[in-house]
């Protein structure tokens, strides 16, 4: 790994691990916990749960530090990255060998083309609209990933057991929503209320009909 990228990658890993750095910072925030279930156990890989504010005027602080996304080994890592609207992702070419990459997306939420760039270089993209942004490389045929852009900083990738916890959520009315990278079930949208210092429990059952 290119040493220049290590601090950024570590920071990205930390942000990615919580998937919700800002949600932890407001002291008066509420907590949303629950479990996502489906007909077939273990059928929910790469499922995102996130909040959409019902108050269209609501604004949330967004981390200004770019989140690093690795391309070492001709693989996007993480393969699914969740960010909030207004966040920037830094696409690193951290290949140890002389391999160029050309990251692009044609997704409506953020079409872009970063052009060709070599190891040791990186390019940044500001994600300013919510929705999935599918990533590809024009050189490597199996190099695919996705950035899911959440409308708020309150999101998580559900665990293997389907459980999730959103911390430090600003009080208010929200839709609790799901998104699956491979859509095996209908996505759900459930209205919830979050209170300051309170805990809201909402389980989500995904079905095909």
């Amino acid at each position, binding site marked *: 790994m290119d040493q220049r990228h290590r601090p950024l990658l570590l920071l990205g890993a930390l942000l990615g691990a919580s998937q919700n750095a800002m949600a932890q910072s407001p002291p008066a925030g509420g907590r949303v916990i629950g479990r996502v279930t489906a007909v077939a156990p273990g059928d929910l890989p790469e499922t995102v749960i996130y909040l959409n504010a019902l108050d269209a005027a609501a604004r949330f602080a967004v981390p200004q530090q770019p989140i690093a996304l690795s391309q070492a080994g001709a693989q996007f890592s993480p393969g699914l990255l969740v960010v909030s609207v207004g966040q920037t992702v830094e696409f690193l070419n951290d290949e140890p060998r002389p391999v160029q990459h050309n990251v692009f997306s044609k997704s409506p939420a953020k079409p872009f083309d970063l052009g060709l760039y070599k190891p040791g270089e990186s390019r940044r993209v500001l994600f300013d609209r919510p929705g999935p942004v599918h990533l590809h490389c024009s*050189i490597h045929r199996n190099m695919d990933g996705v950035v899911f852009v959440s409308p708020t900083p309150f999101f998580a990738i559900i665990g293997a057991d389907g459980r999730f916890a959103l911390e430090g959520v600003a009080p208010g009315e929200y839709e609790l929503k799901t998104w699956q990278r491979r859509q095996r079930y209908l996505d759900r949208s459930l209205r919830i209320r979050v209170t300051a210092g309170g805990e809201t429990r909402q389980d989500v059952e995904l079905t095909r009909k």
Partner: protein
Amino acid sequence: MNSTSPARSPSRCSAARLSPVSAAALIRFLPVAALALCGCQGPQPIRADLAAAAVRVEAVAKSGYREGASDGYTASDAPLNAGAFERVDYGSLRDIVVWVEPAGGSSVARAAANGEVVLTAQPVRTPPVVLVSVGGALSVENRGSLTEEVYSVAEGLAVNLGAIAPGEKRQVTLERPGVFELLSSTRAAPLATIFVTPSPWAMVSAAGKTLLFNDLPPGAATVHAWHLRLPAESAKISLPAGGGARLQLRVGVDALD
């Protein structure tokens, strides 16, 4: 440039002369009798009340990319076109959908395009792109040994073919345009990517081919190309009655520009 011709000139096989990297544009006149240029199989008459379009599809790498040279590969790096590093082969890119959409609808009737997916006991390594046009049928035949529940829950494009037993074949009519993954309850990977075109004048092509649509309604139309990963161009054309036009569409990341 948008050129058309009612044309009476002799057949001429000139498709191979098209520039492989030119932007989407009509190339030049398309004589009626020259429509066979697509496959160089001899003249094909065009009805006086119809029009034709010959669409060449080219897949091109990012401008400025020179395989090997610009990457600085050395002999020891030779395996870097395998595994995760396998490169896109633009010369043989497959599963490019091309369709012609007449402006303001069409008075010419054409049967909807149907698509078929065949399930076998083998895993699906690369899900095929299956074309269906709006109003067409998607059929799924199970030639495997297990019953498979086949469905999609894509928004606005949900289908449910139910549990399909070995040896059974079921079908569903698709009423809305769009693209979705057809899934099976017993497989992690999709069975196929289904592309539903809004128009019945549609084909699936590989790069470097020229497609002939010879029963189009005369008038203005838009020709679209689509690929699952790569951006693709669209172009407007004008089709004269009894004649036709040629154009080239580019598939590749530069189409985003």
